[in-house]
């Protein structure tokens, strides 16, 4: 009996173990999911409205209700939120809610929600977090209609807002990866959902139901690559501007109380400027100081100039916030003073001093943030040096953030190719029709063997008043997606500053307003923040006698998109003749690709027909091949790429392969379907420019109808070519 009990227990334990492993395995494969809101806790609409309110600037009078009809809730059970646009709203087509009681949690891949459109018309919707991140145009998301078991890949429309289309009658789950948002998602407070009915003029309200708001998936851990500096530096401190009697402590350079408290710090004359001398007068092995620097998340690293005057190699730990040291084995960069390029170095020192400053080293040390395994701040940096037990000095200079811009630059125009002023006009430059009428432009020598464009304002001409102080010139360019901004070389020969405005794609809200722009005078190495004027329409100050490059980050504009219609404006302080010279208009900070800038496709041309057919015959399927071609920024055809096609919105009876084979069955509806074409470069498979275009489906002449009129074969004829037995 005992033997049977043991056997039984053995079998039972084995079964339990197997079941346990199976459960563990299943759990391990299950996708991460965190329900945030299912509306079940709300007893009434009034209770719901305590947490859910309209967004004051869109759909401010739309109606938020608690829906208790399970047919309009996720899974056909429980409650949901019902949102109805209001005819009383100032923005009648909008419906919105804002909720601040849902907490964000890190580590998830995206947000999902269930939505139902009970109406007869489609509407667009987008979520927005903390008044910031919202889904990008033409970005991936997924849809799973109720009753389906797998998600379908979709692409947001090309619109900046309301770019998730909810078709009439749709109900199902939408999930949007945070990677598809236009800014990093780090918080939710508040979450906005804003819908747009799209009726113009508005004729009737629309409703939607939302439920099961959740976080899903696991955020991918990104392994940050070590990036060496290019010429994009933002100087944190080069000491040059300090008065003679400025002490390091006055500027936040402090002794490290847990290090060698007798380290001496001094600003010294160094080269043509000043530098920080760190000396170990106490003949201890250690020398150290503490300093906090501002941090920018988009920067790739911190660089500094260092001269080791100790005569010996020094161990070095530039530690962040008293704790975060460079990680052993990771890469950083050094550049001797006269070297042209940075070379890689590896943090191969000790745990306490991971880096080494070679004896006699004089040059730059660049610390990519990847050497720290990621950086979120540069507070309380402790620069710790360990050397010989002798008096030694190390010079520090030019602390910089680098890689803030990065990427490639593409010239929009450098004026060198124009023969004369007529050619400039023929290329599309003209005075802005709503601007000054007493202005003119003319090609001039740019002093570098090329040409530039001189803009002139004449005084005393008929328009008078403000127009006598303005120059406005307009030109439409082809833009490239992904640029971090527009830059332009500007020369102001006057002894007084002029103000510059830069409007893109028209619209007073799409111009370089009072945000930060950057300037780099000719001969300078790095950009610095430019002066912002008090005139919001001409916010960029071009200093007297300035000649250099002005960078306008894309953040200054609402958006930059094709075609990039630019109105460049200058405004002087008095109604006297003045002139400015512009040159080298560029897009900068384009994503790095293994493609030469001149081979980058900036314009996609659709070569296939803009229409297709919905078949009428039973069992008939129409197919058509979509085709595009790509032009570079100079309008030259490029054949270094193919296209990846996708439907912007799912449409019944319509399928599209990545290679562009469009198939339409008789289940399709008449009307436009929107298609996204993405450039895929042959060289490295990287994606490039995108274009959304439409194909209009109409009832076509059905070829297969002919098959329905079949008849018996004819009798043999003398005219037949062939006779068969």
């Amino acid at each position: 009996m005992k033997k049977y009990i043991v056997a039984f227990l053995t079998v039972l334990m084995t079964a339990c173990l197997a079941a346990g492993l199976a459960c563990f395995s299943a759990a391990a494969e299950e996708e991460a999911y965190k329900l945030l809101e299912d509306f079940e806790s709300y007893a009434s609409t009034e209770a719901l409205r305590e947490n859910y309110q309209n967004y004051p600037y869109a759909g401010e009078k739309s109606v938020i209700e608690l829906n208790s009809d399970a047919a309009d809730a996720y899974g056909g059970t429980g409650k949901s939120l019902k949102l109805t646009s209001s005819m009383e709203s100032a923005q009648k087509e909008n419906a919105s809610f804002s909720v601040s009681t849902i907490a964000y949690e890190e580590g998830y891949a995206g947000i999902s929600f269930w939505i139902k459109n009970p109406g007869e018309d489609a509407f667009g919707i987008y979520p927005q977090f903390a008044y910031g991140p919202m889904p990008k145009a033409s970005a991936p998301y997924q849809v799973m209609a109720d009753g389906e078991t797998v998600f379908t890949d979709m692409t947001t429309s090309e619109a900046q807002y309301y770019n998730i289309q909810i078709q009439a009658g749709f109900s199902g789950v939408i999930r949007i990866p945070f990677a598809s948002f236009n800014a990093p998602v780090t918080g939710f407070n508040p979450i906005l959902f804003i819908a747009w009915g799209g009726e113009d003029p508005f004729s009737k309200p629309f409703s939607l139901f939302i439920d099961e708001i959740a976080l899903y998936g696991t955020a991918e851990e990104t392994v940050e690559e070590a990036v060496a500096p290019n010429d994009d530096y933002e100087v944190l401190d080069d000491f040059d501007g300090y008065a003679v009697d400025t002490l390091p402590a006055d500027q936040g350079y402090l002794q490290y109380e847990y290090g060698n408290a007798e380290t001496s710090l001094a600003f010294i004359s160094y080269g043509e400027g000043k530098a920080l001398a760190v000396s170990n007068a106490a003949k201890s092995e250690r020398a150290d100081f503490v300093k906090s620097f501002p941090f920018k998340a988009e920067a790739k690293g911190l660089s500094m100039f260092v001269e080791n005057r100790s005569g010996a190699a020094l161990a070095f730990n530039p530690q962040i916030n008293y704790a975060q040291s460079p990680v052993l084995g990771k890469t950083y960069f050094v550049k001797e003073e006269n070297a042209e390029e940075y070379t890689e170095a590896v943090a191969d020192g000790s745990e306490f001093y991971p880096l080494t400053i070679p004896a006699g080293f004089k040059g730059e040390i660049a610390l990519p943030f990847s050497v720290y395994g990621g950086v979120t701040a540069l507070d309380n940096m402790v620069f710790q040096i360990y050397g010989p037990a002798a008096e030694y000095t190390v010079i520090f200079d030019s602390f910089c953030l680098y890689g803030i811009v990065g990427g490639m630059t593409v010239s929009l125009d450098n004026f060198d190719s124009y023969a004369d002023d007529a050619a400039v006009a023929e290329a599309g430059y003209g005075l802005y029709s709503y601007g000054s009428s007493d202005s003119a432009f003319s090609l001039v020598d740019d002093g570098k063997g090329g040409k530039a464009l001189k803009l002139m304002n004449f005084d005393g001409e008929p328009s008078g008043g403000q127009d006598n102080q303005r120059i406005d010139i307009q030109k439409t360019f082809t833009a490239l997606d992904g640029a971090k901004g527009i830059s332009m070389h500007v020369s102001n020969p006057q002894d007084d500053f002029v103000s510059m405005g830069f409007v893109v794609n028209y619209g007073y809200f799409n111009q370089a307003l009072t945000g930060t722009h950057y300037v780099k005078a000719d001969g300078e190495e790095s950009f610095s923040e430019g002066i912002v004027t008090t005139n919001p329409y001409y916010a960029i100050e071009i200093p007297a006698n300035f000649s250099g490059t002005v960078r306008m980050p894309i953040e200054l504009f609402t958006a930059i998109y094709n075609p990039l219609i630019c109105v460049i404006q200058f405004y002087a302080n008095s109604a006297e003749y003045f002139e400015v010279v512009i040159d080298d208009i560029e897009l900068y900070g384009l994503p790095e690709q293994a493609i030469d800038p001149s081979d980058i496709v900036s314009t996609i041309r659709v070569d296939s027909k803009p229409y297709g057919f919905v078949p009428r015959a039973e069992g008939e399927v129409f197919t058509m091949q979509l085709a595009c071609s790509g032009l570079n920024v100079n309008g030259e055809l490029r054949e270094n790429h193919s296209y990846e096609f996708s439907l912007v919105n799912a449409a019944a009876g319509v399928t599209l392969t990545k290679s562009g084979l469009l198939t339409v069955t008789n289940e399709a509806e008449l009307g436009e379907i929107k298609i996204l074409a993405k450039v895929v470069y042959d060289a490295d498979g990287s994606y490039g420019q995108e274009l959304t275009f439409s194909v209009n489906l109409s009832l076509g002449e059905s070829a297969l109808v002919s098959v329905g009129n079949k008849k018996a074969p004819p009798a043999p004829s003398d005219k037949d070519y062939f006779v068969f037995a």
Partner: protein
Amino acid sequence: MKKLLAVGLALCSALFLFIACGKEREPTAEKRPEGMTMLSSYQLDTSGVDDYEGYVGVKITVGESDLNVTMLGRIGLHMQKDHELVILNETKAVVASATLTAAPDAVWNKIVYAELKGTDSAVLEAGISYYILSKEAKGDFWYGEETATAANPYFSIDGVVMTKDLYDVSFMKNTQNCVLGPVDFVFSVAA
């Protein structure tokens, strides 16, 4: 007597001429093409179409090996005019073409074949779909979608297709192993 002989000879000649003139045309001589054909065996639809202007044929998808095509063909029955034959790939680019005349390069099993224009052979790539099409005008009779052939290990016969302009192609669902025309081609498996 001579007269009688002459009359008899004349009567015989007249009878010979009468018989000769009333005799049916000789069947077109067969000349088997070198290589395999899609229509190695087939069953014609009992009816067809004679009032369509456009292209008719079949969509195929090549299997695991490339195919070398050397001839294009079409049913020879009721053929009273020359026919242009083409192979298009999925992007509707012409891969091969041939003109079928009253003097074909091969005749077999009532299918007539013509060599490709400008080249000895064309390659149909593994895994790619192609359209084999014959240009038909009003008055040309071709057999309908119930013309069936046997499946083969080299490519799938996806179904019948028609197109007015070689661009928008109508594909008929549930017509696997069926061929309009029928069209055909001669192929070998690439080494």
